[in-house]
C-alpha cells in the first residue's frame, strides 16, 4: 500500500483528518495523525489522550515492546453469497482509505500488521443475512487490519465478535459508497486477561448511512476509538455503545465525529453500567463541526449507571463548532448511582434485591439494545447483562 505509506506525515490522505489536525479536538493529541509508529512518542501517561489509560496494563502495545506471536488471534469470516472476502497484503489500495491512525497504538498496529482482511459488498447488493467476523484470541499478541467496503447503494449488517484471550491492536476501516447502508456490531466479549486497542474509521459516502454498535463486556483493558468522517453531503452516522464494566476492568471508548462536509447528521448514544472495585469506564465524545459543514445536525450522549461503590467513570463530551449555520448540536453526559434508596423503594414493593438491580439495569439498557437490530446479538446481550448481574449478587 505504497500509496498511503509514502504520504508525508500530517498531510492529506483523508482530507478530514488533516483539517481536523488544525483544530483543538485534534491538536490536544500529542502528534498529528500518521501511519508510522515512529511519528508518535512513547506515551508516558500524562498526555491528554492517554491520561485515563493504564499504560502498564497495555502489555507493551504502546512502547514497541509487544511483538506479534504466531498464534495471536484466529479470524473467521462467514459471509452470504455476493460478498467478496479476501486476505490482502499491505499494499492494497483500500487499506487506510477511511482514516489515519491518531495515536501510537493505532500506528503501531498499522506499522506491524502483515495481512489485512478485506470484505467487499458490491454496489447495489442488499444483504438479508449478516456478515459475521469471528475474532478469537488464542492467547498471543496480534496486530490486525480489517477493511469493510460497501459499494454504492449496497446494504449490509456486519457482526465482529471478539472472544478468547489476546493482546490485540487493530485498525478497522469502514468505507461506505454513496447511498450505502452499513450496520456494524462490534462485540468485545473477551476473556478477563485480554487487551484490545483499536481504531475504527468510518468514511461515510454521500447520502450513506452508517450505524455502529459497540458492545464491550470483557477484557482487562479495552480501548476503542470509533471515528467518523464524511465523503459527501447527506451522510448519516449513528454511534451506539453499551458497556458493562466489572471489578478491575478498564473500558475506554473515545469517539470522534468529524463533520467535515455540509448537511450531514450524527447521533451518538453510549451507555454503561459499572460494578465492583476499580471498575473504570472512560468515555470521550468529540464532535467537530468544521466551518464548511453547514446544515450539520448532531447530538451526543453518554449515560453511566454505577451499581456499587469502588467504580469510576470519566465522561468527557466535547463539542467544537466552527460555523453557526447548523440545524442542531448538543451533548449530554450524566452518571447516576443505583443507590440504597432506590433499592429500598423497590424492595419495599416486594421485589427481591437481585431482581431490583436487574430491573434497573435492564431498563437502563433496554432502549439501546433495541437499536441493534440483530436478533441473536440482542438476545446474547440480554443474557450477558443477566450473567454480569448474577456475578454481583
Amino acid at each position: 500500500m505504497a500509496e498511503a505509506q509514502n504520504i508525508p506525515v500530517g498531510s492529506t490522505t483523508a482530507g478530514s483528518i488533516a483539517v481536523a489536525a488544525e483544530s483543538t479536538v485534534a491538536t490536544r493529541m500529542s502528534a498529528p495523525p500518521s501511519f508510522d509508529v515512529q511519528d508518535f512518542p512513547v506515551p508516558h501517561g500524562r498526555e491528554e489522550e492517554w491520561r485515563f489509560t493504564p499504560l502498564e496494563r497495555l502489555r507493551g502495545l504502546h512502547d514497541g515492546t509487544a511483538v506479534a506471536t504466531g498464534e495471536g488471534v484466529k479470524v473467521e469470516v462467514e459471509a452470504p453469497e455476493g460478498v467478496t472476502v479476501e486476505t490482502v497484503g499491505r499494499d492494497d489500495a483500500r487499506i487506510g482509505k477511511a482514516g489515519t491512525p491518531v495515536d501510537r497504538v493505532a500506528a503501531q498496529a498499522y506499522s506491524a500488521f502483515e495481512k489485512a482482511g478485506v470484505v467487499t459488498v458490491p454496489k447495489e447488493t442488499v444483504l438479508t443475512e449478516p456478515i459475521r467476523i469471528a475474532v478469537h484470541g488464542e492467547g498471543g499478541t496480534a496486530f490486525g487490519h480489517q477493511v469493510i467496503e460497501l459499494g454504492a447503494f449496497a446494504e449490509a449488517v456486519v457482526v465482529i465478535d471478539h472472544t478468547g484471550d489476546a493482546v490485540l491492536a487493530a485498525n478497522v476501516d469502514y468505507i461506505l459508497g454513496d447511498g450505502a447502508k452499513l450496520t456494524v456490531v462490534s462485540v468485545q466479549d473477551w476473556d478477563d486477561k485480554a487487551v484490545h486497542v483499536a481504531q475504527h474509521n468510518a468514511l461515510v459516502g454521500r447520502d450513506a448511512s452508517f450505524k455502529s454498535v459497540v458492545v464491550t463486556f470483557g477484557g482487562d483493558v479495552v480501548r476503542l476509538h470509533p471515528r467518523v468522517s464524511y465523503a459527501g453531503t447527506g451522510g448519516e452516522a449513528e454511534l451506539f455503545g453499551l458497556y458493562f464494566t466489572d471489578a478491575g476492568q478498564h473500558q475506554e471508548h473515545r469517539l470522534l465525529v468529524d463533520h467535515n462536509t455540509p448537511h450531514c447528521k450524527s447521533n451518538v448514544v453510549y451507555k454503561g453500567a459499572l460494578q465492583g472495585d476499580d471498575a473504570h469506564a472512560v468515555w470521550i465524545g468529540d464532535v467537530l463541526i468544521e466551518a464548511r459543514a453547514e446544515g450539520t445536525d448532531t447530538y451526543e450522549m453518554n449515560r453511566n449507571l454505577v451499581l456499587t461503590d469502588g467504580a469510576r467513570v470519566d465522561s468527557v463530551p466535547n463539542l467544537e463548532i466552527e460555523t453557526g449555520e447548523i440545524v442542531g448540536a448538543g451533548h449530554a453526559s450524566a452518571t447516576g448511582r443505583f443507590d440504597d434508596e432506590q433499592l429500598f423503594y423497590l424492595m419495599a414493593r416486594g421485589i427481591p434485591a437481585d431482581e431490583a438491580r436487574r430491573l434497573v439495569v435492564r431498563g437502563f439498557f433496554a432502549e439501546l439494545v433495541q437499536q441493534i437490530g440483530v436478533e441473536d446479538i440482542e438476545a446474547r446481550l440480554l443474557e450477558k447483562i443477566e450473567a454480569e448481574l448474577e456475578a454481583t449478587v
Partner: protein
Amino acid sequence: MATLEIRDLRVTVEADNATKEILKGVDLTVKQGETHAIMGPNGSGKSTLAYSLAGHPKYTITGGTVTLDGEDVLEMSVDERARAGLFLAMQYPVEVPGVSVSNFLRTSATAIRGEAPKLRTWVKEVKEAMERLNMDPSFAERNVNEGFSGGEKKRHEILQLELLKPKVAILDETDSGLDVDALRIVSEGVNRVRETGEVGTLLITHYTRILRYIKPDHVHVFAGGRIVESGGAELADKLENEGYEAYTKGGASE
C-alpha cells in the same frame, strides 16, 4: 384476622458520628379493618416508626418486637416484609430512572402475589385503578417517580396500595404537600382500600386536615419517640384546637 403488633420498639440512628435513640419504646396494635392515626410534631419519630417497620437499613432496632400475625417482622428482609403484607406509602418516593411505571407495577404485583398476574386482566385492573385516581394513561410509560410532581408521586403510591392489597398499610405523611383536590383524590383511594375491610391502616400525619377525609378509629399522639396519648377521633379535634404544645413542652425527652 391480620394483626400488626408493635411492642416496646426501640430504634437508633447514626448521625454525625453519634448514635441517637429515636424510638423509645413504641407499643401499638393494628388490626385488619382498623384505621389508626399517628399524629405528632416534627422530629417526634413518626417517620422513623414507618421506615423501621418497612426495614430501612438506616435504622437499627435496639429493642422490642414487631409481629405480623405472629411472624417476626424484624427478622424479615425489606422485600419479605412487603410480601408478608406490609406496605409503606412513602413521604418522599424515590426516582428509579429506566424503569417504567407499568413494568414496575407488574414486577411488584408478581412478587407480592407470588405469580405473574394474567396480562389481560392486569392491564384492565391497572387502567381502572389509574382512572379512579385521575391518572393519565401516559403515566404508565413514564419512569418511576421521574419528573413526577408531588401530587403525582402520592397518587402513584396510592395506586400501588390499591393494586398490592396489603394486610397493613402505613401511610407516611401522604397528605403533606398536596392541594385540596389532590388530597381528596388520594383520600378516596385510601378509603376504597379501607372499605374492603381487609387492610389495617396506620396513617401518619402532622396535620388534622386529612382526617376530614379519612376517619380514624383510633388517634395516637406521638412525641419524644413514643405514643404519649391515645384516644378516639375526638383526640384529633383536641389537637386541631390546641396543637402539640402540651406534648412537646413537658413530654419531650430531648
